[in-house]
């Protein structure tokens, strides 16, 4: 790995994003619109809004960055740029970390705007700090990037790539404790939810919602999600082959 190449790759990916203002607008506006929708849905139940909005702030960057990354990486594979990159001094980790950092930064902007709106306009109430919410959102986004990099290896076309979203994201969202609290699930469902990273991300958010100061559970959850990021990146690196048939 080289910091020069990693830096150049981050700048290149961000430039690609900057040339696509519609995508940037959607990255920022869509979460804000959906939060607005939820706000008015639970107009007279601020406690319910607090619960749902907090989880949305964390889950949204995960889903969006998973999709964006799967497509971006699939494009690298299908347009031949990946093959070309692998004949240059670029290392696999330069590329993978490049995507992680670049889209992580994009997610930080997205999460900050969404959190700003939720806290100041919609009076979202959490016992803990807004910054922790944004931190968890960014880690979730990087998890989405890492899983997207990995899953893109199993898609030949964009049609296939987008369908990994329901496969990877929806079960995690259903089982993360947002709809049914995890303790109330059937044992086998709880067991599944115990091995899904998003369960820990959502628990971390709920810890911020309920406690003024960061708890041990919060730090453990953040560590678990970060560990999953590392595992997904290692798996993604294993799918990047310099030589192909």
């Amino acid at each position, binding site marked *: 790995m080289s910091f*020069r*190449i990693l830096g*150049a*790759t981050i*700048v*290149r990916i961000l*430039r*690609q994003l900057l*040339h*696509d203002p519609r995508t940037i607008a959607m990255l920022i506006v869509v979460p804000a619109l959906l939060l607005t929708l939820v706000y008015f849905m639970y107009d007279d139940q601020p406690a319910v809004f607090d619960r749902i909005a907090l989880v949305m702030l964390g889950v949204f960057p995960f889903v969006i960055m998973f999709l964006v990354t799967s497509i971006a990486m699939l494009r690298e594979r299908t*347009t*031949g*740029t990946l*093959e*070309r*990159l*692998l*004949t*240059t*001094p*670029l290392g696999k980790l330069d590329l993978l970390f490049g995507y992680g950092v670049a889209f992580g930064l994009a997610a930080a902007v997205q999460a900050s705007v969404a959190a700003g709106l939720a806290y100041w306009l919609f009076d979202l109430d959490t016992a803990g700090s807004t910054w922790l919410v944004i931190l968890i959102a960014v880690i979730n986004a990087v998890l989405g990037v890492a899983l997207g990099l990995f899953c893109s290896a199993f898609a030949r076309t964009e049609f296939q790539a987008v369908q990994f979203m329901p496969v990877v994201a929806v079960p995690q969202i259903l089982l993360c404790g947002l709809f049914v609290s995890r303790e109330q699930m059937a044992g086998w469902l709880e067991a599944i939810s115990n091995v899904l990273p998003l369960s820990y991300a959502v628990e971390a958010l709920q810890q911020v919602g309920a406690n003024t100061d960061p708890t041990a559970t919060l730090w453990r959850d953040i560590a678990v999600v970060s560990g999953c990021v590392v595992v997904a990146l290692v798996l993604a690196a294993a799918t990047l082959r*310099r*030589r*192909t*048939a």
Partner: protein
Amino acid sequence: MTSAIEVQDLIVERGKRRVLHGLTCTIPRGSVTGLLGPSGSGKTTLMRAIVGVQVVASGSITVLGEPAGSAPLRSKVGYLTQAPSVYADLTVRENARYFASLYGYDAATADRAIADVGLAKASRQLVATLSGGQRSRASLACAIMGEPELLVLDEPTVGQDPVLRDELWKQFHDLAGKGATILVSSHVMDEAGRCERLLLIREGALIADDTPSAVRERAGTDDLDEAFLRLIRAQVAA
């Protein structure tokens, strides 16, 4: 050392099909070597094997004294894929500067490569808005920059206007004059005469490995197109 590339008994299979059947050849340093043959003959597969992105079934390839695709070669070898492989959502200059930075070259080197392929005026244009010919030149700029020791170019002149094609060939010879080794594939026979050596390949087997004049002599005709045809017929008859 006089040879830049040594290919020994190379066998490549793609899917269930055998694409290269035990191919052996050497490519001298500081030369422009043309790799010619009809489409589907295995040109691209051989080039991919030389730059180290092709899974090979057996055989060996030594490039600049190292096994093909090994890490020390990655800063010495420039590779142009047949389909333009540049980022359509970046400008020509952003593409060139990104690839320059991977090799550790500065922005001026990238800009010079853009000028060398005749794209200086379009350097601020998004690649997606370029014509097909311009797009492949943008891709070429990213391969030739910094004067690599070995340039592997898969059909670099397809779809380019004759004046520009002429200029590109002059550049290839300039680079070779400075010691670079250039392997250019083409299926256009009129380009074969511009090479110092020719590799004629058909259905994954080498049918000639010689200078253009020797190929003409062996086939008994001055027309390389006709020479290629005669060599194939002679091989089929044998």
